[in-house]
């Protein structure tokens, strides 16, 4: 087997995820308690934000303009490609296509974390402002997809604007944006004290992540029974679309001057499908969209694909596209 792929498949993250799936398939009743699941995800996001903030503090915003622009571009393009592909090629109705588009137009923070961990495991490092890009990619795709859906279906659900306030002020955004600001402000002396607890390369972060991935495996495994219900088109879509979006993200990231590691992470973000922010937003604004379709494709197809294979693929694309110099990280973190 290819060595990059192998390294990824034997990582604690991928194996813990696989174990969670297996636990579910043998009908174990084991699952992480709800509050522990929430607690770990709060910790992971807060650590990510803080670390991003301190890195911004070091490297500044120099060079962030272009990557930010292509990230926003991805946020506008990916919901549209998803919608068009599903309607034209897949023959899906407007509500279902828009609902799925909201998921693929947004981003999965856990997949992002896995990509960050992966490139660090490769001995390289993405640009320090990647968490900033994550916050930029979170909501535009949801916004656009819901707007299309509301127009096409007559908008029988809750008004999009109201729901968007919830997306923008949700846990992920508060912790990431807030963490970025706090990390930026506290300075090195304060950071050093808490660094072993929050360092995203550290044992605490990586260890907690394995426990979190167990539960992600359980959640994904619980949806496997629904794979039969979504039909062959969506099965293929859940793998091919991420590859296309991932390649597009890597290419745009490389154009914008990101390192290979950074381009890989941006590609992963584009390829990933939200399963935290998007589902409730879609459920209340597009009631006719079938939740089995969007949840199964995001959680039981695209998420496992990205964790187990996708990230390694996007990294290979990034290495192939990278000019010799850009394969090194643009900013070296001290």
């Amino acid at each position: 087997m290819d060595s990059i792929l192998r390294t990824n498949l034997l990582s604690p993250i991928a194996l813990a995820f696989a174990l969670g799936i297996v636990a579910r398939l043998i009908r174990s009743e084991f699952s992480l308690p709800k509050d522990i699941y929430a607690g770990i995800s709060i910790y992971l996001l807060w650590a990510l934000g803080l670390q991003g903030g301190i890195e911004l503090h070091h490297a500044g915003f120099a060079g962030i303009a272009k990557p930010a622009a292509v990230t926003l571009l991805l946020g506008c393009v990916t919901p549209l490609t998803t919608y068009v592909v599903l309607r034209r090629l897949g023959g899906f109705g407007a509500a279902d296509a828009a609902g799925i588009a909201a998921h693929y137009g947004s981003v999965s923070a856990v997949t992002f974390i896995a990509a960050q961990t992966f490139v660090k495991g490769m001995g390289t490092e993405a640009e320090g402002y990647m968490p900033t890009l994550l916050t930029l990619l979170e909501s535009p795709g949801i916004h656009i997809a819901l707007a299309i859906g509301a127009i096409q279906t007559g908008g029988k659900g809750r008004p999009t604007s109201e729901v968007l306030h919830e997306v923008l002020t949700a846990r992920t955004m508060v912790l990431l944006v807030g963490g970025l600001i706090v990390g930026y402000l506290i300075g090195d002396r304060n950071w050093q004290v808490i660094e072993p607890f929050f360092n995203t390369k550290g044992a605490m972060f990586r260890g907690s992540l394995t426990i979190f991935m167990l539960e992600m495996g359980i959640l994904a495994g619980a949806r496997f029974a629904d794979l039969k219900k979504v039909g062959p088109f969506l099965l293929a879509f859940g793998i091919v679309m991420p590859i296309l979006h991932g390649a597009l993200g890597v290419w745009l990231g490389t154009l914008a001057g990101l390192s290979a590691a950074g381009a890989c992470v941006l590609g992963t973000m584009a390829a990933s499908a939200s399963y935290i922010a998007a589902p409730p937003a879609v459920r209340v604004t597009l009631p006719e969209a079938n939740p089995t379709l969007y949840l199964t494709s995001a959680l039981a197809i695209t998420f496992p694909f990205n964790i187990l294979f996708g990230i390694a693929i996007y990294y290979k694309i990034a290495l192939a596209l990278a000019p010799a110099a850009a394969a090194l990280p643009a900013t070296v973190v001290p």
Partner: protein
Amino acid sequence: MPTTTLKLVTIIAEPVLEATITHDLERLGASGWSITEGRGKGSRGLRASDIPGSNIRIETIVSEPVAEAILRHAAEAYFPNYSVIAYLETVQVARGDKYV
């Protein structure tokens, strides 16, 4: 102990509907509500919650006409696309004048 005869309406729904339903209850004239979290199984199983099967139970004590309006609204607005059940019973409420 003088009590007032009122209706207790119970709605069991997907967690994601909490804001929608409480907003609607207020609009339809309920003076308050109580919510407990739970789980369940039904015949449809349509839902978008991350934890499969989780639901919320919303209860509100209201006058008969308001109860009627709530059930009617639930049947129209929630039943077609959401996992929701709604029912009412008659209860004797202490100091019940507060809820009408």
